[in-house]
Structure formats: structure tokens, C-alpha cells
């Protein structure tokens, strides 16, 4: 694809392989390549430069831009992190907390995962490490009540940004999704719509199941944006295209490692560039 020449069916096959290997999925890959395949079969001449541009445009169009400011305009601005087990919610919260603390915000983290062994300690250790206070109760406490007390504290003590951690949960588990709805309702009681953002955290290593995750979480509570973690690995995170397009979800940040500074604002162009040959 480096030298500008006319492309062949073999080039398209090679491209199909590349896109599937990047986890774009069958549906998205076919949707992108179908019009080009059709043109080729009609005898049209397409140069590799043209192909690359058409792909780049097609991919960029799938990624929706945010329509709300970040952080949201709340008092306090409230970020609610949800997602399946092990994707990087707790670590991402610590990264964002450090970021905003350095930006002069008064930040509070709320240990809403009262279920998993060591979850509260994990967030508390992060709190010490990045210099941000953590509101927590004991393991086993009702998570909705922890959120209630945490947001209440944030309002009373003039915190400007609250980051709420939740336990990882498979989207197929009815009781856990009901629990999540209850937690989200607590936030809604305190904060108006424009003041909170519900963020779905997705692991870039995830395959097509990410679509099912997004769909189920979105059915349970309004989801406003996505954070894509572990982009420092070898996975390309291609399933993000289908998710952004299908559910109209902007990707706010990508996680690039395990340290507090390993979080970058999402850049459409470089994300697409990493997928293309």
C-alpha cells in the first residue's frame, strides 16, 4: 500500500484480514469494504492512495464526537464508572483523579465496589499514591448507600469532581444490573442530568462481546461515553468502531498502561491510523 498503484481483489482480501484481526468484526469490515469491492467488480480503477483515503473516511465516520463538555457541568461533576470484570475501572479512576487534581480540581473518589476482595483497599492505596481522598465504607456495605453518603459528602465539603467506582459485573447478570440501576438512581437524585456522566470502561483486548456489553449496560442505565483501556498491548480495539457508531458513544480516553499518567484523550485520527496499513 506504500507505492501508489491500482488495487486488486487480493489487496481487498489482505485488507479484510487486517481489519478482522484488528477486531473490527465481520459486520463493520464488510460494510467498509463492500462499496469498494463493488466498484472494483464494476471495472473501476482504484489506486491504493484512494483506497486508503476511502477507508480512513469510512472509519472516521463511525466514531462519534462528544456533544457534552468534560467534565460535565455539575456541582460536583460526577463520573460513574461501569463495566465488566477486570477491564480497568479502578485504575482508570485513579488516573483521572490524578489528572484533575493536578489541574486544580478538588477531587473525591468513592469506593463503590463493596463486593470484591481487596477492592476498597485497592482504591485507597491509589488515593494515597495520587494524593486524592477516598470515601469508603466496609466491604459488604450496600453500594447504593456508599454512593449516597459519598455524593452527599462531596456536596457538603465542596468537592468539584467525584469519581465513583463500581464492582465489575457481567452484563448478563440480572441482579447485578438491577443493582447498577439502583446506584445510578442515587446519583440522579443528587445531580441534574448535565452534571453527571456514566462511563462504560472497555478493555481493548475484548472481541465482539464488547457490543453485547455496551448494549446491555445501555439498556440498564444511560451511558454517555466510553474509555478504552489497555491500548498499550497488541490489541487494536477495533470493536470500538461498531460501539461508537451503533450506540452513538464518544470515546473520551484511552488507557496506555498501569501508571497514573497512562491515560490520553482519545484522538480519532491516530486511532484510525493505527488500524490502516
Amino acid at each position: 500500500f506504500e507505492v501508489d498503484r491500482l488495487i486488486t481483489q487480493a489487496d481487498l482480501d489482505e485488507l479484510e484480514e487486517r481489519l478482522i484481526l484488528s477486531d473490527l468484526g465481520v459486520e463493520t469490515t464488510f460494510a467498509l469494504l463492500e462499496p469498494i469491492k463493488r466498484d472494483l467488480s464494476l471495472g473501476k480503477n482504484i489506486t491504493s492512495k484512494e483506497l486508503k483515503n476511502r477507508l480512513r473516511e469510512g472509519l472516521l465516520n463511525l466514531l462519534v464526537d462528544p456533544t457534552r463538555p468534560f467534565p460535565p457541568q455539575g456541582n460536583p461533576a460526577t463520573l460513574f464508572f461501569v463495566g465488566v470484570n477486570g477491564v480497568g475501572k479502578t485504575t482508570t479512576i485513579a488516573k483521572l483523579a490524578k489528572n484533575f487534581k493536578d489541574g486544580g480540581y478538588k477531587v473525591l473518589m468513592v469506593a463503590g465496589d463493596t463486593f470484591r476482595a481487596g477492592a476498597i483497599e485497592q482504591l485507597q492505596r491509589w488515593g494515597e499514591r495520587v494524593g486524592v481522598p477516598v470515601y469508603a465504607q466496609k466491604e459488604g456495605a450496600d453500594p447504593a448507600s456508599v454512593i449516597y453518603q459519598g455524593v452527599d459528602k462531596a456536596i457538603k465539603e465542596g468537592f468539584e469532581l467525584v469519581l465513583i467506582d463500581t464492582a465489575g459485573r457481567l452484563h448478563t447478570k440480572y441482579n447485578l444490573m438491577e443493582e447498577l440501576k439502583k446506584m445510578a438512581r442515587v446519583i440522579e437524585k443528587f445531580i441534574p442530568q448535565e452534571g453527571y456522566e456514566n462511563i462504560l470502561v472497555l478493555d481493548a483486548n475484548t472481541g465482539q462481546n464488547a457490543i453485547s456489553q455496551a448494549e446491555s449496560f445501555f439498556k440498564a442505565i444511560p451511558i454517555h461515553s466510553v474509555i478504552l483501556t489497555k491500548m498499550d498491548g497488541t490489541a487494536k480495539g477495533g470493536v470500538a468502531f461498531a460501539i461508537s457508531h451503533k450506540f452513538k458513544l464518544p470515546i473520551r480516553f484511552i488507557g496506555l498502561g498501569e501508571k497514573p499518567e497512562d491515560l490520553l484523550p482519545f484522538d480519532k485520527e491516530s486511532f484510525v491510523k493505527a488500524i490502516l496499513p
Partner: protein
Amino acid sequence: GLTEKLEKAFQGLKDKGKLGPDDVKRGLREVRLALLEADVNYKVVKSFLSRVEVRALSSEVLESLTPFQQLVKIVYEELVETLGKKAEGLNLNGKPAVVMLVGLQGSGKTTTCAKLAYYLRKKGHNPMLASVDVYRPAALDQLQTLAEKINVPYFPASPSDKPVDIALSAVKTAKEKGRDVLILDTAGRLHIDEALMNELVELKSRLNPQEVLLVADAMMGQEAVNMAQTFHERVGLTGVILTKIEGDARGGAALSIREVTGVPIKFLGVGEKVEALEVFHPERLASRILG
């Protein structure tokens, strides 16, 4: 499922009864899509289907009165064959046996260590738990809490200790206390992280574990192959544990990992509780991958 998909794709052929080779090839294309949608690796789908094609283009399908059922049956059988016909146990020939869990960040290693300890104790063993994860905040606390919950002895360590020192002391302590298995939790790491992969190689050479188990997330996509292959080539794996399989992930990563590394899948993680560990049986996973 796949049979319905094939019937739908071949609606016009219903009256033809038997299939010709071209029809079978079209059917295989449907199977290919189903496998890709199940997250089986692109290249693995190719090699897998080339094996299926040999049987599919034989009289087994071409002479059948129910060709679609026959085609699906062949794919299913080939899946079961590839995934590993019978469950393989753990090699526990050591005094103590050392079982080391490795894998990417967040795959479920720490939880699975506790599950394995619980499982082995139920089978009459005397396991001990230890962790060399000195990196993740409260990782040692997490394993300690789990160990206390299930009443399995835990080798205490601190994040300021060195992984190899912790591991060697844990083995020594397990021996002294008459524990017959030491289950060792390691930190999550990228297969492309040279320093951390070297750490695993060093741990393995110093401990000579009976088992090195790759803990892999069932919802992994195409990179499952690359990841597993790298862990296997660098460290050497004796088994795979696939976690979070009780969700709706199709689990195609399992086929990819097995096909490319040949390493047996030994257990499935089927929940967050300590009892949620199952011995691997290929049939159920084969059905899910088929969809």
C-alpha cells in the same frame, strides 16, 4: 444457531435435497462467518475450515438427506476434537507441587488462584497460596483476603520484597508446613513487556513448577493467539484456564489458543465466587462457539 443460519442461507435449495460441492463451499462460508463472529482468530478459522472441508466435501455430506445437519455435525465434532477430547488433570508431582498462574492484566488470575486452592482442598490436598504481585495496589491483600475466606494458609509478603525471594521462601515454608501444593499468583503483564516476561522466565527456572497455567479471558478477541503463543514460547505453558465464561462471550479465543499452542484447556472460570471453577469439557464450549 448455525443450523438455522445455514438453512436460511440455502432457502432456495430446499427442494433440491442433496447438496453439490459448490453448495457445501457456500455453507462453509457461513460457518466461517459464524466462527469469526465468535472471535475465533482469522488465521485459525482458515486452518480449521481446511480440515472441515475435507470431510464436508465427502459423501458424508454430499450423499446425506439432511446435509445441513451433517455439515454442522462435522464442524461440531472437529471443534470438540480440536478443543481437546478429554479433560487433562493437574500434574501435582512435587514436594510441594508448584502451580504458577500467569496472564494479561485483569484476566482473573488472583481469583482463580483462590478457586484452585478451594478445588484442590475439596479433593483432599493441602494447598498453600502465595503471590509475587508486588506491583498492583493491594494485590497481596486481595489474595490474603481470599485465602482467609476459604481458610487456606497464605504466605505473607510485602510489596517491597522481590518476586523470586517471595517465591523461594513460599516453597520452603510450604514444604516445612507439610503443604503438598503451592499455588503462586503472579502480576498481570503484557506479553510484549520484555522485563516482566523475563521475570516469569526467571521465576520458572528457579521454581521448576509442575504447572504453568495461562489464565485467559473468554471475551478476548483476535489477539488471543499472539498473546498465548508469546507466553508459551517465552515461558512454556502446561495448561490454560478460561475465565468469565458464564457470560455471553462466544469464547472463540479458546479455539484459537488451543489450535495455535496445542496447550490443553484445563479449567473454566464460571463466576466470581470461589466455588465457580469447572473442569474443562469441550462439548459445551464447542456448542457456544458454534452459536
